């Protein structure tokens, strides 16, 4: 649980780094301004963008240590093999994530900063969900759910739909990360319309006009037609996800008693998605204020995590769906017709 909470905090600091556009404020890696990362004097990182970037690195190292401790303790505990393996995956995941963060800095000068930034963001989301799943699977409640007697015999379609919906949310988060790591600010500055239309004009003349009008203190990159379309896809997917999570919540409500684990997950999931859609709109209305944009990213991470927990809980609690039985003999057919 400590690793999960620390990871969420780390993800939020990382979000602030991107929201403020200060990912390159410490230009070297693994050192920081030539110092060992842990020995950078306070007066060198107490200001501006360096504070966020260097805090992110230190916090990342802390989460790395926590994850190593988690993996070691799982390995030497009496837990199911799957948990041991998940602990190892988490450990290698956090190492990979640290390297990706470094590559995002080192390869920026070669024009690969944004690409590594998106991968770094995507792995962060997966890692956060993974440590939360591990946290859930190490609870006493998880063990109780495993008792055959406590298994509710309900509609098991949630076993299929919850993971699918979680994957759709992950795809949405990748689109969001791609938008954020273009460092181009808002590709569309208004909502619910887009440049005053239902679908914006993406001709080269129109895009040139949009760019000319984007006067700001921050040196955002120019936007492209592709980025405008990407934001429109992000909006459409948001509506779709909101509708599908609502359906999922309704189905859970109909098939599970109030207070049951899946009902609680479904309630939380729907609430998060509604908050997330609202934050998406507020991000635009506040001209992508760093704290709001970071909150939008963080609630996205929580939505993915809730989907992942809902999915593993559904697998734990719901019976395997049975295929319709196919009559295999004439006696069987006779029995059915009788």
């Amino acid at each position: 649980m400590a690793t999960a909470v620390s990871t969420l905090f780390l993800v939020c600091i990382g979000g602030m780094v991107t929201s403020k556009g200060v990912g390159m404020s410490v230009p070297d890696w693994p050192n920081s301004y030539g110092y060992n990362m842990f020995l950078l004097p306070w007066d060198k990182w107490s200001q501006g963008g360096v504070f966020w970037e260097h805090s992110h690195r230190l916090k990342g190292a802390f989460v790395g240590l926590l994850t190593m401790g988690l993996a070691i303790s799982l390995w030497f505990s009496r837990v199911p093999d799957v948990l041991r393996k998940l602990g190892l995956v988490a450990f290698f995941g956090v190492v990979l994530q640290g390297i990706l963060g470094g590559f995002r800095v080192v390869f920026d000068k070669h024009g690969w900063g944004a690409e590594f930034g998106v991968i770094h963001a995507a792995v962060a989301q997966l890692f956060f969900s993974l440590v939360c799943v591990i946290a859930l699977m190490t609870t006493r409640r998880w063990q109780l759910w495993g008792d055959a007697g406590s298994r509710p015999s309900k509609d098991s379609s949630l076993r299929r739909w919850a993971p699918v919906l979680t994957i759709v949310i992950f795809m949405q988060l990748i689109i969001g990360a791609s938008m954020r790591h273009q460092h181009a600010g808002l590709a569309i500055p208004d909502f619910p319309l887009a440049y005053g239309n239902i679908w914006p004009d993406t001709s080269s003349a129109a895009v040139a006009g949009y760019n000319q009008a984007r006067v700001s203190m921050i040196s955002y990159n120019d936007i492209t037609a592709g980025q405008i379309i990407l934001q429109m896809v992000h909006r459409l997917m948001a509506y779709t996800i909101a509708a599908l999570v609502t359906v999922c919540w309704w189905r859970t409500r109909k098939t599970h008693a109030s207070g049951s684990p899946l009902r609680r997950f479904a309630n939380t999931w729907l609430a998060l998605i509604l908050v997330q859609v609202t934050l998406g709109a507020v991000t635009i209305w506040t001209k992508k204020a760093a704290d709001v944009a970071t909150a939008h990213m963080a609630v996205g991470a929580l939505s993915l995590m809730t989907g992942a927990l809902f999915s593993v809980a559904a697998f734990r609690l719901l019976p395997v769906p049975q295929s319709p039985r196919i009559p295999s003999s004439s006696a069987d057919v006779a029995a059915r017709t009788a």
Partner: protein
Amino acid sequence: MNKSSTVLSLALIAAAPSLIAADLTGKVTLKGTPPAAAQQPMKENMCGNPEAYVIKSRQFVVGKDSGLAGVFVYLKSGTGVDGKKFAPPAEKPLLDQIHCEYQPYTFGVLAGQGFTVKNSDPVLHNVNSTRAKKNTGKNFGMPTKGQMNDLMFPNPEFIQFRCDVHPWMLAWVGVFENSFFATTDADGNFSVKNVPAGKYQVVVYHPKTHGVNEGIVKEVTVGDAGAKESFEIEYKAP
């Protein structure tokens, strides 16, 4: 007339067309009303300035008679530049960081010509060249007041400089293929010096307006007495 002075005279006559050089001058104006400059309020003693002050965005700085400041003007091709190589001068322009602003906002260098980046502030800046496609980007810290670093880009393109510690800090460096370039002053005036007489394609590039596009290209004939040309950049509100 002795032999050597005859040879010198003949050489001067042969080189005469390329020795006739004059200035290409003019003005770049903005048509339309751009958005108001964005502002960054700064408290006293920030970035070495004892007084509170306001930093304004410089994407559109409009002066007298709609003159647009900070626009690059350069010769793309023509009589005096085609097929010629230009040796980078030893002179190094200065890009200063003072009170958390880059000064100047735009300036040009010849490809291969060095320039100096200075930190005049008592705070750390990082100098980050972005949007470089034909040159390897640079990003380094300048923690000490008075620190100077020399930079050089070998390939022509427009490069944006920013400081990620203070994300509002922004400057543009134009790296050019030949030595015939200028940037407009506060009132949009420019002067490209010592252009050999001939026909040229002149490009006017405003970073905010033209982005990844080339800019305004115009055919200009420079005579023995030079040439004067006006260019108009249009602000098209979306």
